[in-house]
């Protein structure tokens, strides 16, 4: 009597396996390519991103001299894409750096100070959490007028709770471990111990959360530009390229809008893959040490 059990449905432990790195390799390669073209855009771009050519407007991808076609005023989509990448990447980077500093500071302060400071900061993070990030960004645009500086600051504040909560709970966890106690017993100051020993321990988490935040910020800022509330012409990012392509899309010429859209999508997917790999490997490492 022989019996082979077809896949029984209880799973769980098996899915915690480290993922095959193929996706990771592709993501890293794509991101490197995007960053490289952004940095070298003035050298690499075949045309000026501002050069209009009304006789050659809305050329489809594959047109000679314009690999990715032209937009409604005949500007080269590839060149605009390469130049647009600069703002599209720099602005989210600003959000990540600012919210990284803010979130780390708030999280560490809440965890180390404890008491009413902790209570107030935790409640403040809950309140910020209630503001959808894009709404907060639009609110500051209403206050300060269009442009990217104000939304970058607003998004940094909006993302602070994500990191702040994680850092706070990790700092509480680490702070309770014996080695921290032994430093305190040796007479090292509370803040010295925090900065010297706690910070390096939470650094990987800050990096992983920062990577994921980069993706969110890229989407939020591109959305803002798409709505005409972000970058001001003549500057352009991917979001404003799509915005300018809206009427061409309605006329059945979608390429000048779809191409920057695909660029946003692929970049965000790659960033997410990277961020999830980072947080996944942190979780695995913690699983081993704890």
């Amino acid at each position, binding site marked *: *009597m*022989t*019996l*082979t*059990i077809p*896949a*029984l*449905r*209880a*799973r769980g432990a098996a899915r915690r396996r480290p993922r095959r790195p193929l996706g990771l390799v592709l993501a890293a390669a794509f991101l490197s390519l995007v960053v490289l073209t952004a940095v070298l855009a003035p050298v690499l771009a075949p045309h000026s991103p501002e050069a209009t050519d009304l006789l050659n407007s809305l050329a489809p991808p594959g047109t000679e001299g314009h690999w990715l076609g032209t937009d409604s005023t005949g500007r080269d989509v590839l060149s605009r894409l390469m130049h647009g990448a600069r703002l599209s990447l720099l602005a989210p980077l600003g959000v990540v750096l600012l919210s990284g500093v803010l979130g780390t500071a708030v999280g560490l302060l809440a965890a180390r100070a404890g008491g009413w400071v902790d209570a107030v900061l935790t409640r403040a993070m809950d309140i910020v959490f209630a503001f959808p990030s894009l709404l907060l960004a639009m609110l500051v645009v209403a206050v300060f007028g269009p442009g990217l500086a104000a939304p970058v600051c607003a998004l940094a504040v909006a993302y602070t709770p994500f990191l702040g909560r994680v850092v706070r709970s990790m700092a509480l966890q680490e702070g309770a471990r014996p080695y921290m106690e032994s430093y305190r017993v040796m007479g090292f100051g509370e803040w010295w111990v925090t900065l010297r020993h706690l910070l390096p321990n939470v650094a990987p988490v800050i990096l992983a959360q920062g990577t994921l935040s980069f993706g969110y910020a890229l989407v939020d800022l591109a959305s803002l530009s798409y709505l005409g509330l972000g970058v001001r012409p003549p500057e352009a990012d991917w979001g404003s390229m799509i915005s300018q392509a809206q009427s061409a899309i309605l006329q059945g010429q979608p390429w000048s809008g779809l191409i920057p859209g695909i660029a946003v999508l692929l970049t965000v997917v790659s960033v997410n893959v990277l961020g999830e790999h980072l947080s996944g490997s942190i979780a695995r490492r913690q699983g081993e040490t704890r």
Partner: protein
Amino acid sequence: MNVLDIAGLRLSVGDVPLLADVTVRVGRAETVGLVGESGSGKSLTSRAALGMFPRGARVTGHVTAAGVDVLAAGRGALRDLRRTRAAMVFQDPRASINPVRRVGDYLTEGLRASGVPAREAAARALDLLDQVGIRDPGRAVRRHPHEFSGGMLQRVVIAGALAAEPDLLLADEPTTALDVTTQAEVVALLKRLQRDRGTGMLFVTHDLDLAAAVCDRVYVMYAGRVVEEAPSAGLFRAPAHPYTRALLEASPSARGERAEIRAIRGRPRSLAEAPSGCSFRDRCPLADDACARKVPDIRPHGTSLVACLRPQEVTP
């Protein structure tokens, strides 16, 4: 007639063998112990009785539980077996009861699934809780698992297992997760209910002393194989396998006869990592070259059936 008949059971997942040639029998109204360390395959064996195998498992041999040929049975027949003829009590009651449903719901779920009307099932639930010694059953059925202590919750699990009046009760380390005083109460309860109803019970545990106290007969498993089978009394007086003897010497006893506690050298092996021949030979003080040649056959020695080439050196 036996309520559980496992013969020549082999089980592997992929290339990893987990059980080899396991034979376990439980008679009506008999309590049988299945003893071994973690990884010995004792839980796999007890779950096989209900046709519950790990994902991707390859199984050969014979398993007959409460008259049902488990390996040949279809989904419906297996479900019927689990609903009405065989039941299992798990190690940790906190993990084995759904925490978000009420205790009454836990007790009636199986009955309702086998077609008992709601009102009758509810009445049965109250009666069962009363039998396992839970005060105020009417209130208990409306409560959630987290409102009970571990011992009380294990009583609820036992009540659930008895709901269908099974012929076969599988108890998988039913007291390991409980504290010592509660352990004794739960064991006494299991024993009383089993005797009153004439249920056959397979009692799985890593605690040889407990098994000997509770059971009529004991199987000792090591690395996916049964290495010794004996009546409890005989096993204690005269263990025939070096592993059984080592287990007895390794367990602290309240009786004070064996003052010296000796740890077994090395660590427990699973079947996949066991050496050739006798699985225990790399940890056995008596092992020699002969033990490496083939897996020892099971043969009688004293009151035991034992898989060892030289049981006379264990119990002269």
